[in-house]
């Protein structure tokens, strides 16, 4: 890893962070009462969440200009961590020992798949 790569790695992780926030926004929107099915998708929260998700894909693309594709599973792994934290922070979803061990297994699996 070169020092030139560090800002691009940061962009990559930030993009995953943004995508994870967008997931939390989608969850929040799904809990809101809407007048019909169309408004379940075309409400400000859902539309903003998808716009943020789109921006995150662009940031990932920028990041992968300097970061090798083989390192991309690191990004994927971090999304599971971010979503677990946001679930606990915003929706009171308990972080149990089971979940932490499960998360460990998922992340190890992703690393094994990447090597």
């Amino acid at each position, binding site marked *: 890893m070169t020092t030139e790569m560090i800002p691009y790695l940061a962009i990559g992780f930030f993009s995953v962070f943004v995508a994870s926030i967008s997931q*939390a926004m989608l969850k929040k*929107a799904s809990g809101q009462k809407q007048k019909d099915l169309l408004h379940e998708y075309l409400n400000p929260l*859902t539309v903003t969440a998808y716009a943020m998700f789109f921006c995150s894909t662009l940031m990932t693309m920028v990041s992968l200009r300097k970061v090798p594709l083989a390192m991309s599973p690191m990004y994927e792994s971090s999304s599971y961590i971010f979503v677990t934290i946001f*679930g606990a922070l915003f929706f009171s979803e308990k972080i149990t020992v089971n979940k932490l*061990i499960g998360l460990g297994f*998922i992340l190890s699996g992703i690393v094994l798949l990447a090597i």
Partner: protein
Amino acid sequence: MKGIIMKKSNCKVLALLHLLFMLFSLTGVCSKLAGKSDFLSPGFFFWYGAMIVIMGIYAVGWQQIIKHLPLSTAFANKAVTLIWSLIFGAIIFREHIKWTQIAGCMLAVIGVILYVLPQRNEKQEEKEVTENDN
């Protein structure tokens, strides 16, 4: 009683979620087929279009699923897409599967099961809800 009914409906939602993840994994197949086609050729548009359609269906389904499941639980299940990508890669593109990849998938599946399983105190709470409803 309500507890048991909730559990049954959760199973249905989980089954739908996994069906959705299998469908989502096909976007990788479409993306690779689009990449193999000449840029802006009919084949490119077909596979790229198919990818967009599948992503649209996935987004619509995902929004309905997270209404019924905790976000972290639904998201952790996404790890199964690793297996589908491996299977589709082997079947459609004759990609060679390494032992480390199989081991990686097995670890991810164990991880998802552990993540989704209720912990002892959660089981206790569920039992209490069931007893109270009876």
